[in-house]
């Protein structure tokens, strides 16, 4: 059984259809790269997986549990969705760190708030908070930010901010971590440090879906590549196959355009 099963996802904004019959699946430890030009629906797809948008059709299941089924409106209350979206993490193009908190607190905040819902939180308060802080520190060290924990976001470079954002997403231990063009807002010399961190996560068998324009990175890191155009999946499969020897004319055009740059 696949870990993530996405079936027939449809989405339209008014009359414009932005996602058409999107189906794919991935296994534990897979890294999927989604490539395609702007406006092809990549970001909308990620936003549907994270429930920032509600798909109009199709279903999403993780580990056999149906998280979303467009036909079943009753199971789409805010409270239900809040729990289900924790299966997914999302790293944004624009980082979206909380500016009033230090790097460490950014990583801890959501977990702290969730811990308060545990029945034994009051009794084990100190212990739980210590655990959360320990885990957050470990994550920041893993991201190479050991000496940046007490800095506020505006004191960090873009690459550092994005690494904090990755640690923040990992802190909730999502089943699948999604990246929405994680390096598009960064200077070229800062993209390397973020890509390196994602590569390390791939080596540790973190299940990830990465929307990216970095073709070489997609080819090297991904176990599976999806090429999207105009709201459709045009081609998907082995990264070397799709990127080096695409079957579809549209994929070839897109990649040729990239090679020119």
């Amino acid at each position, binding site marked *: 059984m696949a870990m993530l099963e996405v079936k027939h996802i449809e989405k339209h904004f008014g009359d414009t259809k932005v996602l058409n019959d999107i189906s794919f699946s991935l296994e534990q430890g897979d890294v999927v790269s989604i490539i395609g030009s702007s406006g092809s629906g990549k970001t909308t797809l990620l936003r549907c997986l994270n429930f920032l948008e509600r798909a109009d059709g199709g279903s999403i299941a993780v580990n056999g549990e149906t998280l979303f089924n467009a036909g079943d409106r009753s199971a789409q209350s*805010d409270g239900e969705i*809040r729990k289900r979206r924790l299966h997914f993490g999302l790293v944004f193009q624009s980082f*979206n760190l909380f*500016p*009033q908190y230090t790097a460490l607190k950014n990583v801890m905040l959501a977990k702290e*708030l969730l811990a308060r819902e545990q029945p034994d939180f009051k009794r084990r308060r100190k212990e739980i908070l210590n655990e959360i802080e320990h885990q957050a520190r470990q994550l920041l060290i893993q991201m190479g930010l050991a000496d940046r924990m007490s800095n*506020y976001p505006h004191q960090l470079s873009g690459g550092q901010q994005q690494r904090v954002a990755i640690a923040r997403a990992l802190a*909730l231990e999502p089943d699948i971590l999604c990246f929405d063009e994680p390096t598009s807002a960064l200077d070229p010399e800062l993209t390397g440090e973020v890509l390196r961190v994602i590569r390390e996560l791939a080596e540790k068998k973190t299940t990830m879906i990465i929307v990216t324009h970095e073709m070489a990175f997609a080819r090297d890191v991904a176990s599976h590549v999806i090429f999207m155009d105009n709201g459709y999946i045009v081609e998907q499969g082995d990264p070397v196959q799709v990127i080096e020897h695409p079957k579809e004319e549209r994929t070839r055009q897109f990649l040729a355009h990239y090679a020119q740059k």
Partner: protein
Amino acid sequence: MELFQQQLPIVIHSLNIGFLQTLKLFFVTLIGAIPLGLVIAFGSMSRFKPLSWLSRTIVWIIRGTPLMIQLLIIYYFPGLVLGNNIWGSGEAGRFLASAISFIINYACYFSEIYRGGIQGVPHGQNEAGLVLGMTKRQIFFKVTLLQMIKRIVPPMSNEIITLVKDTSLARIIALQEIIWAGQAFMKGSQGISGAIWPLFFTAVYYLACNGILTILLGRLERRLDYFR
């Protein structure tokens, strides 16, 4: 000079009493307008069209007409329509009418500042909170509120300092605030008449008060300076 020395304590005593009324109106207005402004701000941002239309219309009317006219209407209109002055004839009634006019007026200005503050927080902050499993309430209190406050402090400081001076408008309905108290010595009061200097002297009170406010609000602004 000798005359001035005789008059000074009398004038200062009167001005102190007037200034107390000024301060009272100032604080009551703040206490009322700060929360009411939030209600109006949420009203005008509401997705429920009639409510947002109503809120925006009220803001348009209040901001589009002079506060002095609003004071006159609120104080005299009930008397004209109902045939009796609901505010009573004393200072307490005039204060209540002034306070209500000021609260409504300032709440409308505040609401626009709040609206700017709320809409100025990037949408990504809300989305980041959502994907981290926070509730809407947690996102508001833990993420967006402080960012909003940081954005609204400078424009609010401006309005608050303007409010100190605007309280003088309440003398149009004979509220005995500090300018009213100063003016009394022109008409004649406590053996002093034709003296214009007490009126000039009121400026010292406003200046001192706004000096203190500027320092306090500046301090608040600096306390929020640690993040961007």
